[in-house]
């Protein structure tokens, strides 16, 4: 006896305790996070793949299949070598949606809880031989240590007692490792550290045994070479590889195992630390596997040299035993123990998660009326449930081992498990590359593949069922069959893929599946929909979720999601709330599985069912494109550059542009909008217009809802700049409609033109024009003022000598009359030039008497005695009132009458008449002058256009009239000659009719 039972138990407990100590230290933060997150630790943790098959089974494979034993490693090498094509897309989806197992991934992709249930059940079945393999490897190795070389002949029976002990210990450790955290947020640092340490121990121990075999048994490399030369049949064993179909099947099952085995999926995706660790693993894991496979051939040859004192699978133990070396024997045992314990711990944890999320919780939800029992809280419930499930899985593994048929080698058990998990490969590949696949196809394919596998490989392990039928099935297509397992591999996978393909093509794919397929598809960016939520704040989220999760859990989950997204707790933007909902679902999915999480979110935080399905969330898509870590190539790069160019063009336009969704959510807000509103894009994109300052909100909301395509010259009240003596901004608004990419809704693009500067220039122009008019009037005014002044002077002279009081009073009255005349002239001028300071003022629309305004204009024009004498005839109705600004309207008539006078002959009449048309007053200014040629009629309202001689006019008169009337909300029409006449011109001014205010009446 090499070792006693207590010593062996002590060794096992000491080894696992040291692992747990490392794990505990990692969890407590004793091991720095930068070490735990180092890609090397990740690579070592992926060494979990190398189970007892790598330590013991590989020698059996090498003995039977020569170099083909390397396929066990090369399958994984190929998978990681192709990581950018296969693992990276899966990792992306798993990280975003917190998917922790293969069942989670396939349920998420195929949007079906039955997929999760079937995958979990199938995975449990497929992993039973794998768990039995670990138990058998450790118990056999332990038994060999007890019995030394007698094992081969005397102890073919199962080592039940040792197996039970091992299972009990490993179950306790698995529970310790696996139930410390229940939320997906927390990476299992302790588990990763422990498994990485196990991989290191395994590697060093196996290399030690290999060196022991070479130097201790053979005496060195040269001697081993001589021994090989002396035994050419050994070399022939190496060179007699498997037939091609078998070797391909072997490569395929290990290739699939690298992603489908629950422990590999868990370590690769769930425990991935990010930051490019997978990229390092794509060459790091192949390097690790290279190193751990190096000692296999020397160990196998050592086993052969020892001439079968032990089964060839246990050659590693035979090396130490034959040399009576405690170090080598213990190293070989510890290598096997660490390999087996790593697989049992990780795969049991992964299977427990799958069982919880896809078997137990959905059933519990059904049983409790779709609600969790909120007291005690969900985290505690989950912890206990997980412990129970872990125990049950290890018990199932032990029972399978117990009922195994006699004579099953490690290799047999391993192959059955690997072929079982191979059945998930079509589903995984379709998840990434085939958006057309649907759940019915997957379910049928899995059922077909697994039933074939069950009857050909699994059932014969525990019964005397003869699977010869598979040979006949195989021989339908192939000439010969080398082994049952290779025929079963090809047939089960073939049936699986055929059913998957046919059913998927022949049946319909649901919209949910299509959306999930787009998310998972590698060349398709996730297209989130901009749906409307019924809740409006994180607080409401908490309240609703608490009905299902319990108050503290709901609060913790919402707070965690807010922290993840760096959002405030008072967030109310619909865009942010949608992201918050998605994050909560992802986090709950990590804890409860995607099916349950999806159902809870649908019930507690639903989207509005009525209205359009929702357009794509453009801003989120853009953000994801910007955050993308991949540099696009080829056409994608060109398109991305084009997108950036167009985006930058819109962003940098010197004009405000923003777009609104059908629900008035702001989708885009360019930099000029930020400038004129003072509201940043970050603050407003994803919000409703109500998030803007009140002045902007009312203005933009009114325009967005109106039927008008444009609103010109709007004055934004100075409420926009409280506390500032700002005259406010002048803006013009234009809008157009854009059909969203989903073609279900219409978005609006609104252009905001800041015309404040233009308005200021225009005011200056008006002022200049007014000054020009005043200049033209100046001579007449001087003459007009001069006459009464002369009269006053004469009267004052007479007054000096007048003594009669009556005469003095008469003279004073005359002087007052003359000064009144002067005052009236001056008042008219002041009145005309009153607003002419060149600054922008809001137009004050008040009811005005048209006839008075025309009188005032005529009076001013008549002051100019140098001008042509014409007859102004004001026929405006004294009762007609218009809504206008007095100063501006006066300028309109001065310009129109002045033009009419210039066009008329001496003493010709110029008629001004008014008429009511519906809600408007039409004022016609007609003359009998030379008229305006038809070919220039389209240009006369343009600035600086004149038909007068040089020096006679500025060309601004009519353009100013046009601009003022636009400002007043009126229009001007030209008819030259007027209808029914042969000569002359008629300008018709149309203005809104007004009534006197009530107080005047």
């Amino acid at each position, binding site marked *: 006896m090499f070792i006693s039972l207590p010593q062996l138990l002590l060794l096992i407990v000491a080894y696992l305790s040291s692992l747990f100590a490392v794990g505990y230290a990692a969890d407590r933060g004793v091991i720095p996070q930068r070490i735990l997150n180092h890609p090397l630790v990740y690579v070592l943790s992926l060494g979990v793949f190398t189970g007892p098959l790598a330590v013991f089974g590989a020698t059996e494979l090498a003995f039977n299949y020569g*170099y083909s034993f*390397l396929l066990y490693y*090369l399958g994984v*090498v190929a998978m*990681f*070598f*192709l990581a*950018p*094509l296969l693992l990276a897309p899966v990792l992306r989806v798993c990280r975003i949606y917190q998917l922790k197992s293969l069942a989670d991934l396939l349920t998420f992709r195929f949007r079906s809880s039955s997929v999760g249930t079937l995958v979990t059940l199938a995975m449990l079945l497929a992993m039973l031989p794998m768990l039995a393999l670990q138990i058998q490897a450790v118990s056999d190795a332990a038994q060999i240590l007890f019995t030394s070389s007698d094992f081969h002949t005397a102890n073919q029976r199962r080592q039940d007692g040792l197996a039970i002990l091992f299972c009990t210990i490993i179950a306790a450790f698995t529970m310790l490792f696996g139930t410390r955290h229940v939320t997906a947020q927390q990476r299992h640092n302790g588990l990763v550290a422990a498994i990485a340490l196990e991989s290191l121990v395994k590697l060093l121990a196996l290399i030690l045994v290999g060196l022991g075999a070479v130097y201790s048994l053979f005496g060195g490399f040269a001697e081993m*070479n001589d021994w*090989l*030369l002396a035994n050419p049949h050994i*070399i022939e064993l*190496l*060179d007699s*590889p498997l037939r091609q179909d078998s070797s391909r099947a072997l490569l395929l099952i290990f290739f699939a195992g690298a992603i489908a085995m629950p422990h590999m999926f868990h370590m690769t995706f769930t425990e991935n630390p990010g930051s*490019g660790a997978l*990229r*390092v693993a*794509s*060459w790091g894991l*192949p*390097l690790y596997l*290279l190193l751990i*496979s*190096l000692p296999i*051939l020397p160990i196998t040859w050592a086993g052969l040299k020892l001439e079968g004192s032990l089964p060839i699978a246990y050659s590693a133990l035979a090396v130490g035993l034959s040399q009576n070396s405690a170090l080598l024997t213990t190293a070989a045992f510890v290598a096997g123990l660490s390999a087996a314990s790593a697989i049992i711990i990780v795969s049991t944890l992964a299977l427990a998660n799958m069982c919880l999320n896809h078997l137990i919780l959905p059933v519990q939800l059904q049983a409790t009326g779709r609600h969790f029992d909120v007291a005690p809280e969900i985290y505690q419930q989950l912890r206990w449930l997980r412990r129970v499930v872990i125990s049950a899985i290890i018990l199932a593994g032990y029972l399978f081992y117990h009922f195994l048929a006699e004579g099953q080698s490690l290799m047999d058990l391993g192959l059955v498990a690997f072929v079982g998990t191979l059945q998930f490969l079509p589903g995984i590949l379709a998840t990434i590359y085939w958006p057309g696949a649907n759940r019915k196809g997957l379910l049928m394919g899995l059922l077909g593949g697994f039933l074939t596998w069950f009857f050909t490989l699994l059932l014969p392990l525990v019964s005397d069922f003869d699977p010869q039928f598979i040979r006949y099935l195989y021989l339908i297509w192939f000439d010969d069959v080398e082994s049952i397992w290779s025929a079963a591999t090809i047939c089960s996978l073939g049936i699986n893929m055929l059913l998957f393909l046919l059913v998927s093509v022949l049946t319909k794919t649901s919209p949910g599946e299509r959306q999930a397929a787009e998310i998972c598809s*590698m*060349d398709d960016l996730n297209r989130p929909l901009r749906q409307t939520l019924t809740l409006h704040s994180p607080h409401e989220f908490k309240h609703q979720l608490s009905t299902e999760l319990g108050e503290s859990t709901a609060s913790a989950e919402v707070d965690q999601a807010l922290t993840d997204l760096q959002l405030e707790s008072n967030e109310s933007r619909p865009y942010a709330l949608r992201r918050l909902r998605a994050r909560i679902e992802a986090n709950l999915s990590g804890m409860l599985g995607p099916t349950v999480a999806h159902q809870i979110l649908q019930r507690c935080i639903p989207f509005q069912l009525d209205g359009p399905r929702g357009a794509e969330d453009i801003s989120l898509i853009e953000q994801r494109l910007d955050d993308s*870590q*991949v*540099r*696009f*190539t*080829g056409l*994608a790069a060109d398109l991305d550059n084009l997108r950036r160019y167009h985006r930058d063009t819109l962003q940098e336009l010197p004009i405000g542009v923003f777009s609104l969704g059908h629900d008035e959510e702001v989708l885009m807000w360019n930099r000029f909008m930020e400038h004129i509103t003072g509201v940043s894009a970050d603050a407003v994109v994803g919000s409703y217009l109500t998030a803007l300052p009140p002045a902007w909100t009312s203005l933009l909301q009114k325009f967005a809802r109106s039927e008008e395509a444009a609103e010109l010259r709007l004055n934004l009240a100075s409420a926009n700049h409280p506390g500032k003596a700002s005259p406010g901004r002048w803006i013009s608004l234009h809008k157009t409609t854009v059909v969203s990419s989903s073609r279900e809704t219409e978005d609006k693009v609104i252009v905001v033109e800041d015309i404040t500067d233009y308005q200021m220039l225009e005011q200056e122009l008006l002022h200049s024009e007014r000054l020009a008019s005043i200049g033209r009037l100046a001579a007449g005014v001087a003459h007009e003022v001069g006459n009464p002044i002369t009269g006053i002077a004469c009267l004052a002279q007479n007054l000096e000598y007048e003594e009669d009081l009556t005469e003095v009073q008469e003279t004073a009255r005359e002087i007052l009359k003359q000064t009144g005349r002067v005052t009236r002239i001056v008042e008219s001028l002041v009145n005309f030039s009153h607003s002419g300071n060149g600054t922008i003022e809001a137009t004050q629309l008040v009811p005005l008497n048209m006839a008075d305004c025309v009188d005032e204009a005529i009076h001013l024009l008549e002051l100019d005695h140098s001008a042509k004498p014409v007859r102004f005839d004001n026929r405006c109705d004294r009762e007609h009132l218009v809504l206008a600004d007095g100063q501006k309207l006066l300028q309109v008539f001065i310009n129109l009458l002045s033009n009419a006078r210039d066009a008329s002959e001496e003493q010709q009449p110029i008629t001004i008449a008014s008429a009511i048309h519906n809600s408007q007053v039409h004022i016609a200014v007609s003359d009998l002058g030379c008229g305006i040629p038809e070919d220039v009629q389209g240009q006369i309202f343009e600035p600086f256009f004149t038909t007068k001689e040089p020096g006679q006019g500025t060309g601004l008169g009519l353009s100013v009239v046009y601009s003022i009337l636009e400002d007043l909300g009126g229009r001007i029409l030209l008819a030259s000659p007027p209808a029914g006449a042969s000569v002359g011109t008629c300008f018709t001014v149309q203005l809104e009719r007004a009534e006197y205010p009530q107080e005047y009446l």
Partner: protein
Amino acid sequence: MYINRSLLMVLAVALVFSPSALEWVNTGGTAWYRPYLLWSLLVLLGYWIQHQRSHDVH
């Protein structure tokens, strides 16, 4: 779809040379380390591809 051109190139080369490589391994006699030489080459190529790719990422 992001296309890893280095990876595709290596796969194409591997496809072309795999029969010769397998023959070279199988005719090694006592040179049992030959597969490991090819494997080492694969590791180096993997390192090179990922090194290239990490330069691509911005």
